[in-house]
């Protein structure tokens, strides 16, 4: 059995080389997922890089990324496989004259007429793949059951064909924004990783790597202000991606040192609710003139 990763530090360095700054928890769990051959369930607030993690892992290990975006009403034919009815019909019409029924029946339910969807594709792939099942909390609780077989045994049962077993074990990421409680059965099959907002040091690092031409001083200030804002009781705390947007804006505006006034004027990039903006502006800046 060969593993993808040597040890925990190599995971972290690998991720860093593709511009994803992982902390101990993240790299540890990714390493473990590879060793135990278990899927990872990634939860956390929106915009903390859950999806990006899967992408980065794929990029660093040179694997193909197969993505299944979940939504309400997702079903078997969209997630697992579907029979290509049109082609089957054509096949039947093509030689209406000859052949017995049983022969034809066997023929139209073969690989040739099977349309693979992301889940089946991930386990039939020859090369290494990373499977990303995005926003799994959006599907109904009944649909979750679709995923269970593939998550625990890496196989798909197709009644007409039999069981398709994985040729290689894909590394599976499931992300969830936690809008509902996932079922016990699903959680039990996964390793659990909670990705929270990064601490100040890491956020500064992220800003420095992701935003070109930013000065160390400015990045530091941004990270500090964002930390202070997150401590307020807000409807929606600024996410990492919003921090990055803010940093880019400040760089574009040619600001080197953030003054209260400038912070106030650009707050709408960090915060998306009027009440939040008002609150943050009050806490950070306006009080100065009292």
């Amino acid at each position, binding site marked *: 059995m060969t593993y993808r990763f040597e040890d925990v530090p190599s995971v972290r360095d690998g991720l860093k080389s593709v511009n994803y700054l992982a902390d101990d928890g993240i790299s540890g769990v990714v390493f*473990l997922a590879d060793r135990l051959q278990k899927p990872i369930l990634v939860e956390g607030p929106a915009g903390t890089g859950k999806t990006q993690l899967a992408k980065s892992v794929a990029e660093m290990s040179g694997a193909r990324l197969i993505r299944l975006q979940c939504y309400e009403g997702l079903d078997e034919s969209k997630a697992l496989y579907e029979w290509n009815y049109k082609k089957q019909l054509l096949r039947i019409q093509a030689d209406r004259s000859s052949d017995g029924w049983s022969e034809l029946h066997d023929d139209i339910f073969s690989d040739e007429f099977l349309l693979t969807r992301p889940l089946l594709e991930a386990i039939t792939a020859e090369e290494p793949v990373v499977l990303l099942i995005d926003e799994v909390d959006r599907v109904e609780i009944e649909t979750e059951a679709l995923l269970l077989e593939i998550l625990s045994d890496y196989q798909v049962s197709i009644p007409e064909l039999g069981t398709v077993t994985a040729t290689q074990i894909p590394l599976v990421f499931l992300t969830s924004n936690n*809008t509902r409680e996932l079922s016990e059965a699903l959680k*039990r099959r*996964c390793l659990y*990783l909670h990705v929270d907002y990064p601490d100040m040091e890491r956020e500064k690092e992220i800003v420095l790597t992701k935003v070109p031409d930013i000065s160390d001083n400015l990045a530091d*200030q941004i990270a500090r*202000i964002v*930390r202070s804002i997150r401590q307020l009781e807000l409807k929606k705390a600024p996410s990492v991606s919003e921090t990055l947007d803010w940093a880019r804006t400040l760089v574009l505006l040619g600001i080197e040192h953030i003054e209260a006034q400038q912070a106030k004027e650009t707050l709408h990039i960090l915060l998306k609710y009027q009440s939040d903006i008002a609150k943050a502006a009050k806490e950070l*800046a306006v009080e100065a003139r009292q």
Partner: protein
Amino acid sequence: MATVDLLSGFIQELRAAGLPVSLTENLDAMEAVKHIPIEDRDAFKYALGATLVKNNAHWRAFETVFEVYFSLRGPQYQLRDDAEADEMWRDMQEALRQGEGKGAAGGSMDNLTPEELMLLLYQALMHGDDALMRALARQAVSRFAGMEPGRPVGGTYYLYRTLRNLDLDAMMEKLMEATRQQVGGELTQLEERLEHDEYESRIEKFKKEIEAEIRRRLVADRGAEAMAKTLRKPLPEDVDFMHASRDEMLQLRKALHPLTRKLAARLARKRRHGRKGPLDFRSTVRHSLSYGGVPAEPKFKYPRPAKPELMVVADISGSVAAFARFTLHLVYAIQNQFSKVRSFVFIDGIDEVTEYFKGIDDISEAVHRVNTEADVVWVDGHSDYGHAFEVFWERWGKDVGPKTTVLLLGDARNNYHASQSWVVKEMRQKARHVYWLNPEPRSYWNTGDSIVGEYGVHTDGVYECRNLRQLEGFVEKLA
């Protein structure tokens, strides 16, 4: 193998603390630790966390148990590296002496005067020196906590003693003052705030070090099993409203937000995916015309579950105030599931507070206003359910109609006033439903001055709502 024993004890303790750890998860954890050396404490912790804890709200409980079970393992966390700290202290001293031109007493850290210790702490906090902070935490605990082996006192007592001696609030002031001087007097408000937050996080870190140190010593003294038992705390969703400490309250409020979001999503989904309604006869006949009068395609009525109109009448006196606050918060967070929500609060007088929630984004602010501004005292500010209900019925009784669901919140401890339970009886006759939510454990009902039974017989049900879990269950049923 020792690790296996240790792990099974650890998992048992997690289960005792209320975390749902299944057998497969247990096996996964055993498998996981094979790949991670126990010496790498952080990696080890995350490995166990990833396999055993599947809900972020449980992480804190997990961390506590982990600290207790594994705090003495891993070389850098052992008690013996005082020598190392002393060495660092000597280096530090060198630097100090050069900086200030004044010689302090040489030798080990134990010989420091309290003033010097404070100075050192001040330096550590100023520069965010983690290693020094850890050494100082150790020193502070051995100096100030006054720990004695075998003494049956909880960790909080030692923590309190240590912190009282350190006086970190004054330290904060000093740090801010120094920063102000560094930049030459004036800080803008923004800078001031940022610096303040920075020091606060450092001090918080220092406090955590102290807490961890105390815990380590206690575990060394009493053993992990006993310690874990004393530290066992209920999970956020199981915390009792009436007996929550300030810290637990904070946790509860944090837990409330995602919970309301989940509840709202679930209810909206339920409404959309409700079963099909009954046969729509008119529509079926109309469509049958296109099939020559044969009703080939039955049409069903679109389900329109009625949105109830809600009236919340809450006791906000002392002990039950927290419960009322949480319920109001939850109800308003999902208010689009109701056609109308009105709320009233009382102690011995009663006041309508619906206005406070109108057009406000921030529910917690509205709830805060309810607590401070509502006019709820009539005579003496002790609960009088009878009078409050009477006034309610007189002033707002006419608004209760067949679509209204009335929620009465309180422990029904009436201070031996007249119950006026006829109000509830009449209320039920006019309203669709009347429910009573009681934050007290069921076994306390109808003891002392509690007369919940007297009111309860006239309602459609009395529910025990001691924690978030029960409250969530009830609200989901309601909408």
